[in-house]
């Protein structure tokens, strides 16, 4: 019952980006795996990712945020044909 006194009135969420604390990784059937040796850091996977789950550090693609990646596979398809550094593996494997 004390809960209602704590929640900000009107249903406002007073902080941005709290969804980062919500895991959608469990939705995944396929897991993206990157071969960083092949990756040219073109950033196409990063820009096309619906889940903001491609991790970029200092201008380089370094891997995936598996807490949020839903395994859609767009990164693997969009990785340029000459590069093809990403493949999708069965999550169970």
């Amino acid at each position, binding site marked *: 019952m004390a809960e209602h006194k704590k929640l900000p009135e009107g249903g406002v969420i007073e902080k*941005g980006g709290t969804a980062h604390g919500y895991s959608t990784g469990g939705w995944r059937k396929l897991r993206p795996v990157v071969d960083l040796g092949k990756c040219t850091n073109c950033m*196409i996977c990063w*820009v*096309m990712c619906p889940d903001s789950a491609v991790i970029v550090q200092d*201008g380089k693609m370094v891997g995936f945020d598996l807490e*949020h990646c839903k395994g859609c596979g767009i990164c693997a398809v969009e990785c340029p044909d000459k590069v093809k550094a990403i493949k999708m593996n069965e999550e169970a494997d």
Partner: protein
Amino acid sequence: MATIKELAKKDELLSGGHRLCAGCGIPPIVRIILRSANGPVVASSATGCLEVGTTIYPYTAWRIPWIHSAFENSAATISGVETAYRALKKRGRIPADKDIKFVAFGGDGGTYDIGLQSLSGALERRHNFLYVCYDNGAYMNTGIQRSSATPLFSNTTTSQAGEVIQGKQEWRKDLTRIVVAHNVPFAAQCSPHNWADLSKKAEKALAVKGPTFLNVMSPCPLGWYTKSEDSIKLAKLSVDTCYWPLYEVENGVMKVTYKPKEKKPLAEWLKPQGRFKHLFKPENANLLSAFQARVDSEWQRLIDLDGKQVY
């Protein structure tokens, strides 16, 4: 215009952890547009996939101030926010040198249909904002019902392909033309597969004073009955088949911003989509060719206007 590496250096303004479907076309659109703003952005969204998917309490994917109030009024709501900005700035309650950009988002149902009036009003009043329609061609959030943006012959739950009727019987409303008729300084059609074109148009739209508009093709694995990994590929096919031409109208001048070297047959875009499955039955070959003919004539009309003053 920013390079992809420059864009990647900017803050991520839409966090992961939202509940949009795997392979949804909307988040890349939102992410690219927000990163193209060059300054603080405040956004509104109409009720719909984007709103529901990104803001399930107490979680929000938005790292910018954001408001949703109802379905038909994303433009009216942002009108109020933008007007408050002008009012409070005039009264010295917001620093004079602070420049905030305003973006209203809506799906095709919330824009072409129920939100058309409020969009038209906000455009006519010349509010300083960008309206972004993510057009996935149906009411996807409520379960794939036909909207006025739904493509011809598309099978939706309210325009079903059955024994006697083969999906939606009407050509889609051409919303971009309707917006252009409001004499807005900038309006464009975009697609997320061409991130550079989308980013450039968003940057332009947000730099201009006055109401601007982007109509963005937004693939939907759920409603298109497609594989989640194919979303961006299908967005590209919608453009390469000239179903969804990329163009802009800047100060009344039409410019087709992408002309495929070789126009692909419409069937290449339709075939992978379950919503058009019935068009590939032998007895429906005439429908398919009618659809192709209409796409061809629409494309030709656009090409004829290329480079011309259209208002």
